[in-house]
């Protein structure tokens, strides 16, 4: 296996990036890939379902305590050896979370040898790229391609479209759109069309199923807790598609008018 996937998953806040990221990570680990997931949200909950619901110390927690951070202090093995890292950050309303991501990413780059050994690294980034710090993984050359997660609702699509504009600006190719369904009308059709119009394609349609929520409530991914479920199969298929994917594009964002037409 000679793959070197470095991806970031973007999308509107609350759309299911962390759930998708952990399930894809778990599915790839099942296939025997060496996987790492790096949570870049100050909430630090990206990897929680790979760790049986447990929280891990974050890079910024340790830096704040003045610890001379070592790889083993911040990288924790979760389900099937998936390496989990949380950047962490200040409490809401205090300090500067953006600077936090920059510092944490620089630290990780410096201390982690295993970064290079991974077949797949997923950067789970906060929904809103509110400042320069939130694109640090890309700017520091760690992310090679992006996936955008959306539903067929107007607001998530609006956010996805904005993200595409941003990706083009920072010169990061888009490898595909993933639809995390919220069971709205004509959803697959709308997202497929959106993907095509920005120059990309729909990689997967993940139906809304209660079982995902049930597993998360227990602190697990679907892959681990309900490996035979229909939705687990969908995540596996997506995981394989991501690992095999070799095309990406510089997305062309739609204007607001066209986007609204599309969802009507």
């Amino acid at each position, binding site marked *: 296996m000679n793959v070197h996937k470095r991806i970031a998953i973007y999308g509107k806040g609350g759309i299911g990036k962390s759930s998708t990221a952990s399930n894809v990570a778990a599915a790839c680990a099942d296939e025997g890939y060496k996987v790492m997931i790096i949570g870049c949200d100050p909430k630090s909950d990206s990897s929680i379902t790979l760790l049986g619901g447990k929280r891990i110390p974050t890079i910024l927690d340790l830096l704040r305590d003045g610890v001379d951070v070592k790889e083993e202090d911040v990288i924790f093995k979760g389900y099937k050896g998936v390496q989990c890292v949380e950047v962490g950050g200040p409490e809401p309303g205090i300090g*500067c979370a*953006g600077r936090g991501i920059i510092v944490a990413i620089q630290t990780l780059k410096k201390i982690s040898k295993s970064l290079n050994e991974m077949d797949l690294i997923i950067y789970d980034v906060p929904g809103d790229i509110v*400042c*320069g*710090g*939130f694109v640090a993984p890309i700017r520091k050359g760690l992310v090679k391609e992006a996936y955008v997660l959306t539903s067929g609702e107007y607001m998530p699509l609006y956010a996805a479209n904005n993200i595409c504009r941003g990706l083009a600006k920072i010169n990061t190719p888009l490898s595909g759109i993933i639809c995390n369904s919220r069971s709205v009308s004509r959803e697959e059709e709308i997202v497929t069309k959106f993907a095509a119009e920005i120059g990309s394609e729909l990689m997967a349609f993940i139906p809304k199923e209660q079982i995902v929520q049930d597993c998360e409530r227990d602190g697990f991914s679907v892959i681990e807790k309900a490996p035979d479920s229909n939705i687990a199969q969908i995540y596996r298929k997506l995981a394989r598609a991501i690992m095999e994917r070799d095309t990406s594009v510089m997305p062309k964002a739609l204007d607001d008018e066209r986007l609204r037409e599309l969802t009507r």
Partner: protein
Amino acid sequence: MDNKNISIIHPRPSSIVAALYTLRDLNVDVAILHGPPGCSFKHARLLEEDGIHVVTTALDESGFVFGGHDALVNILHKVNDMFHPKLIGVVGTCASMIIGEEMHEPVMEANLDVPVIEVEVHAGYRNNTKGVLFALESALDAGIIDREEFKRQQHLLEEATNVELRHGAASKEYLAPSRGDVKYKVAQRIIELLKEGKRGITIMNAKKETGYMFADITLAVNEVAEQLGKADNIINMANIDQNLGLPRVRHHAECIMKDFEEKGLKVHEIIGGLDEYPITGTTIDQLIQEKYSDYDFAVITGVPHAIPMDHLSDMEIISVTNGPRQVLPLKELGHEHVLVEIDLHPKTLGVNHIVESEFGATLREVAKESL
């Protein structure tokens, strides 16, 4: 080191400024500060006196909010047209680094035919030598220096940091600035010692261009000794090896040496290069042990706190520093007389000859009176 984690509250040198000075030593023609207009003003101004152009992207409130990408691209073009530089440096500031400004993209976009050294640095590092290190790392990446010189500099920086931690400005939580002892009295004491037939060593252990002024004290001591007929009682040591350091630093050593030769001053022991002040201590200590342990006094200038006291403790020590916070640590080390050359640094920028020092001038005047 137990003082490694003390919380120092006195203001101290900035790593942004350290990066600027390093760029100067690398002979950039223009340094661009990417940040607010007033950042590092005092030193930016001084560096202009030293012959390099310093400009700022002048980020304002709107720059902090919307980023300074375009401002940096524009200024790169502008300085290229205005100054026709052969080498440009771009230096970060606290403001631009906190908002996550990336300097590489604007540099790529400006696409000048001139090499650009990009230094991502802010002033929030415990040791300001970080700024030097970052600048050198970028210079290495840009192919301006080779790995061997980089390693050498890296070692010097580590030692410089340790020197400050041990007995320097980073050795205590708070050090009050002081003007040191009265120069007139100390000048009298040196003349007294010489008249008594005592033998002395001058040790110039200066940091880079500050040597232009510290060298004047070496000259003055020798002049006075000669006037008193005691020229042979003085041994001179100086860190002016002309084959060590970045080109600009070697040039300073050449200039100072030339002035010494013109004045007929003999340097008995070359103790290293002008950037080796943190590591000359061992050489000096060894030389004194082997050849000069029975000397009576020592006049140490530049970075006196870098020199171990092992074989100096029996001598009467007169030390001259340009750091007002250095007085107390030097007294604690056991230096009987500590003098401060106030505002030395600005006077040593943009020069290529030895500059008169206040203590040198005092010594010469006092000698005239006592002859």
